């Protein structure tokens, strides 16, 4: 059994950077055995060919607070959660803020677990004139202390050696020079202990770095200002999405043409038939329709990680706090709601940071209104159909989707807090980390991790759905359409005299057959049966099936549209990209599948609808009953349908 080491520290100490640096991509999100609590754990190479399992616990200011994160840390350290206690702890302290961090260290070390202390950001602290005596720190704290910089990699080799030693059964318990204080972090006794230890291990050079606090003050003032702060936030977010939209088009084209090239090669080497059809239209085409959006996802997480690392987001939280307070939400809801723009699942779990239960429930209920990354493929597809060749308008429509989702969420929160969830909400207290140049390495790490998760999903669930959708649209095999048989006969008659005209007729006959097959297949029958429900918002039988399947996961919509609307047109898939193929798809009567009113109505539908089964499951788990998620599903679906209906009618009359 490999040693298990718990990673502990205050928020903003660079704990995640260190975790990513130590574990790289060898990390996974899992539940603690026998519980529903999620955690990140990863394998980290230590010592000479050794290995330990690192458990990334949430950053907390104290282990004794009555908040879920503190409780989680206590439960993990005491073995109440998971199958066993960790063998050791890795404590991350911020070198630029040692007095406070040492108090946390004392409370953690007092628990008696073999521990290694990593004093992070030593490079920044050194730049500010701090000199740290590692040997003295080791004596004072009674455990190995190593000064590191998780960003530059300084000290990490020695840290790995120390972790190897701490993971062995004979690792020594902490034994400090001055006994650890008994009282909590922040108590006068704890502050005195930390001041004594700090004086013994660190000293400021006579020539301290220039004081930049007045610049900090001015930036803080601007970023948290009621007007300037909000305008800055709006500008930053607009730039963020514009950059994603613009930058992603290049890799998207590359992905698209790669899959196109694969299809052409399959068509060349495989004999025509069911198997080739499955590969080209089911597997390659279906997966391509999702993977083509990978660049968007990766860029979104990359840029968000840069913003968070820069220190800006904590200020933005205060700027947005005023707006959220009007909607009856606390400032603590900002981070969950912002991360809901990536995915509602982690957002709903992170709503645990909100102490007030009514605030927390309101946040959980509106989180799915935020435009998650699974909606990005659908937005991209529909906005580019809506405004083909007009990138500016498409970009504005794209941003409007985010605004519409956020507004719908805030209005819903307001209504909830005034009715079902009445009561005061708790005020905001938040640490504002120092501004700094964001680390590219950290952001790249986050982006790769998210990209791998997305691909893993595309390779499993979405691949399976693509194959099932292909099968549902290819079977049962329909008898030939009488109209196409007639065309075929005429083509045979014409062939000797006019081969070109005969070929045209033959192609028409094939198209008619494919259309007929589509309509008579299982998917076609389901779509035709339920079409009347969705016809008022402009959907035909194919789009009806696409909307129904996207309930499993929104991004499946693009896959289904591709497989259903594009099936049988191998030549097209090879000649043109995924988007072009969808754009030229037609309905049974030959009219375009996507008209402007249909694209607009679907866009509104996807902004507002709760098209996500996993979210419902997590909401049920977090709220402890199926009452809330079912109400949420009903409310969001009705709202989405109503909104889509309104927009469809507006576009039709315009």
């Amino acid at each position, binding site marked *: 059994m490999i040693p298990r080491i718990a990673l502990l520290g205050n928020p903003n100490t660079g704990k995640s950077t260190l975790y990513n640096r130590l574990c790289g991509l060898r990390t996974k999100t899992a539940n603690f055995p026998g519980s529903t609590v999620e955690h990140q754990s990863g394998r980290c190479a230590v010592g000479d060919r050794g290995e330990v399992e690192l458990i990334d616990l949430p950053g907390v200011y104290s282990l004794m607070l009555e*908040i879920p994160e503190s409780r989680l840390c206590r439960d993990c350290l005491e073995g109440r959660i998971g199958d066993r206690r960790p063998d050791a702890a890795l404590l991350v302290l911020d070198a630029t803020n040692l007095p406070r961090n040492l108090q946390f260290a004392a409370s953690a070390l007092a628990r008696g677990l073999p521990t290694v202390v990593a004093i992070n950001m030593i490079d920044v602290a050194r730049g500010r004139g701090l000199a740290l005596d590692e040997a003295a720190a080791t004596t004072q704290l009674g455990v190995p202390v190593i000064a590191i910089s998780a960003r530059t990699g300084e000290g990490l080799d020695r840290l790995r050696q120390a972790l190897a030693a701490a993971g062995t059964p004979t690792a020594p318990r902490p034994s400090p020079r001055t006994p650890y204080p008994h009282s909590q972090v922040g108590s006068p006794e704890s502050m005195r202990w930390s001041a004594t230890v700090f004086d013994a291990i660190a000293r400021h050079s006579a020539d301290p770095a220039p004081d930049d606090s007045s610049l900090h003050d001015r930036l803080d003032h601007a970023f948290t200002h009621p007007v300037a702060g909000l305008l800055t936030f709006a500008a930053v977010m607009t730039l963020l999405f514009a950059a994603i939209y613009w930058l992603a088009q290049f890799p998207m084209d590359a992905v698209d043409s790669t899959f196109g090239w694969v299809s052409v090669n399959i068509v060349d080497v495989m004999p025509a038939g069911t198997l080739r059809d499955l590969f080209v239209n089911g597997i390659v085409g279906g997966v391509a329709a999702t993977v083509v959006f990978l660049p968007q996802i990766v860029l979104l997480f990359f840029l968000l990680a840069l913003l968070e690392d820069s220190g800006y987001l904590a200020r933005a939280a205060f700027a947005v706090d005023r707006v959220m307070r009007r909607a009856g939400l606390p400032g603590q809801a900002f981070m969950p709601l912002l991360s809901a723009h990536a995915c509602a699942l982690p957002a709903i779990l992170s709503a645990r940071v909100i102490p007030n239960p009514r605030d927390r429930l309101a946040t959980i209920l509106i989180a799915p209104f935020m435009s998650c990354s699974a909606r990005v493929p659908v937005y991209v597809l529909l906005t580019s159909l809506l405004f083909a060749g007009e990138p500016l308008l498409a970009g504005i429509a794209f941003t409007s989707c985010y605004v519409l989702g956020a507004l719908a969420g805030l209005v819903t929160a307001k209504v909830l807090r005034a009715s079902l969830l009445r009561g005061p909400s708790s*005020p905001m207290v938040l640490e*504002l980390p120092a501004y700094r140049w964001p680390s590219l390495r950290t952001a790249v790490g986050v982006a790769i991790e998210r990209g791998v998760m997305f691909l893993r999903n595309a390779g499993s669930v979405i691949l399976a759905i693509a194959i099932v959708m292909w099968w549902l649209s290819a079977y049962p095999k329909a008898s030939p359409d009488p109209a196409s048989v007639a065309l075929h006969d005429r083509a045979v008659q014409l062939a000797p005299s006019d081969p070109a005209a005969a070929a045209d007729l033959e192609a028409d006959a094939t198209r008619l057959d494919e259309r007929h097959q589509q309509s008579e297949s299982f998917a076609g029958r389901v779509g035709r049966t339920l079409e009347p429900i969705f016809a008022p918002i402009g959907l035909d039988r194919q789009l009806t099936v696409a909307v129904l399947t996207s309930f499993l996961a929104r991004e499946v919509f693009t896959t289904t549209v591709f497989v259903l609307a594009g099936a049988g047109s191998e030549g097209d898939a090879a000649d043109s990209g995924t988007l072009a193929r969808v754009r030229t798809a037609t309905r049974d009567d030959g009219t375009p599948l996507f008209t402007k009113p249909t694209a607009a109505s679907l866009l509104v539908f996807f902004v507002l609808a709760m098209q996500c089964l996993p979210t419902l499951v997590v909401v049920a788990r977090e709220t402890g009953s199926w009452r809330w998620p079912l109400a949420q599903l009903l409310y969001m679906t009705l709202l989405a349908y109503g909104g889509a209906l309104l927009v469809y009618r507006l576009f039709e009359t315009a």
Partner: protein
Amino acid sequence: MADGRPTRIPLSQLARGQRAQVECSALDSLPSEHRCLLAAMGLGETCEVRVCRTGSPCIVQIDQTRLGLARSVADKIMVTPIAAK
């Protein structure tokens, strides 16, 4: 400070740039979960704060830590201003 003794005032009434000492039992009117969190974040009894921004949020610096506080929290923290050196 007419009687020569320093006066206790709410943190929210300090001017920008002003320094003050957080007094014993200065956080008593806050709910206990807030009191413990603030102390753990560095804003505990006897610590010295510098005001970086007034209003809402009120931003204070304690040693190297910057905390943003909602107005309603800053109103309930009692401090003694330290005369400018």
